[in-house]
């Protein structure tokens, strides 16, 4: 492309004066980047236009500036950057500039906003810290609550057991109770149990003084010997103090055998542990 003839074609003047169409504008914007002469010619024409315009001023009505300034009042920056910059430059040579009220107000706002920011960050940090603390306290509280409930349940159990024991002691001390000692039979002398038989109600209670540890599928069964025949007097379960068994109106003797869980209709004589006569 012939740069000189482009420059003298009037395309540049047309562009600068705003008379070019979109395609012509696009073209010149590419060309000005590629060819410094074109850029220079654009600038030269702009400057000559500007010079001509500045050299032939005509003035509008004198109150125009005041009207404009009032109209744009709210759109100007609070702190004029030109003045701020000017003061910065002058500080080396001039006495310190006393800040005008507008800038001192805005510097207070600046400090306030910095302070607010610091407080906000600190508060956010505290929030996080307190939340962590709350979480940990909440966890400990839950753990304590569980512990308290289990202790309470334990205590209830112990209380019930104690009450049972107290009642057992009362019964043992009752003169109406017939006490029947059931010592271990021959070969099983280490075993021992006691039957307490209420002479009024004929209820039978048992104290398992010393009986071997049971397997989980086995249970002790008390038998009453009535007219030489064994009668089921009840299953011995894990009870505190005296185990209340069946009502036996009359019996000559009591015995305990080891039976399968739930008991048997007839005693397993091989597994006889203790035996004691009444009276």
């Amino acid at each position: 492309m012939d740069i000189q003839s482009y420059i003298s074609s009037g395309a540049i003047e047309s562009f600068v004066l705003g008379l070019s169409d979109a395609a012509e504008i696009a073209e010149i914007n590419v060309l000005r980047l590629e060819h410094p002469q074109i850029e220079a010619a654009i600038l030269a024409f702009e400057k000559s236009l500007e010079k001509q315009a500045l050299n032939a001023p005509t003035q509008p009505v004198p109150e125009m500036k005041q009207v404009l300034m009032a109209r744009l009042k709210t759109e100007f920056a609070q702190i004029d950057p030109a003045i701020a910059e000017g003061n910065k430059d002058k500080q080396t040579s001039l006495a310190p500039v006393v800040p005008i009220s507008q800038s001192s107000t805005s510097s207070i706002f600046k400090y306030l906003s910095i302070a607010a920011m610091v407080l906000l960050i600190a508060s956010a940090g505290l929030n996080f810290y307190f939340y962590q603390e709350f979480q940990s306290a909440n966890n400990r509280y839950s753990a304590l609550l569980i512990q308290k409930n289990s202790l309470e349940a334990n205590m209830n159990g112990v209380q019930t057991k104690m009450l049972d024991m107290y009642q057992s002691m009362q019964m043992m001390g009752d003169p109406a109770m017939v006490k029947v000692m059931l010592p271990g039979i021959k070969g099983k002398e280490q075993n021992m149990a006691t039957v307490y038989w209420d002479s009024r109600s004929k209820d039978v209670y048992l104290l398992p003084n010393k009986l071997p540890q049971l397997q989980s599928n086995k249970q002790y069964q008390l038998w009453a010997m009535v007219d030489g025949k064994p009668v089921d007097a009840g299953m011995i379960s894990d009870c505190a103090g005296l185990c209340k068994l069946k009502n036996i109106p009359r019996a000559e003797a009591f015995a305990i055998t080891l039976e399968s869980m739930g008991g048997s209709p007839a005693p397993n004589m091989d597994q006889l542990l203790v035996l004691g006569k009444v009276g």
Partner: protein
Amino acid sequence: MDLIQTYSEPELVLLLQQRSQTAFSYLYDHYTGALHTVILSIVGEEELANDVLQEVFVKIWRQMGSYDASKGRLFTWMLNIARNAAIDMVRSRQFQNGKQNRELNEDVYRAAGSTEKKIEHIGLRKLVQGLKPEWRNLVELSYFEGYTQDEISKMLDIPLGTVKTRLRSGLQALRQLLQND
């Protein structure tokens, strides 16, 4: 408080974009006469030129963020804003005056012929008077009255290519006049 007397163009643009009142005041003081001349040379009436000038400064202030120094000098940008605003004002005036007469062509021909004496002695328009008549008329119609080359071609019954060539020759000659001014 001391006012800073001069700004380089990039400084001035930066300060204006930072909404500096001092910079705007400087801009006004520095360019108001030139822009007023441009506007007056298009609208022709003082009162109207004042109205347009005020709007032009508001527009310059509010559109400062969109000014791109790589696309041209600050004055060129402001000059185009002023020219467009002035032409818009003239157009809307013509529209209001020509309400009864709906024939656009007639309006256009009337406008083409009506170059007030006063206008011809103002600013760039005064220089344009020194051009050859065939160029002068095209520069007047396109630059000062805002007609497109297509409109001018129809208006004067000249081929579009010829309008373009003559207009460019006229602008080229205008540059010579500017340099000798």
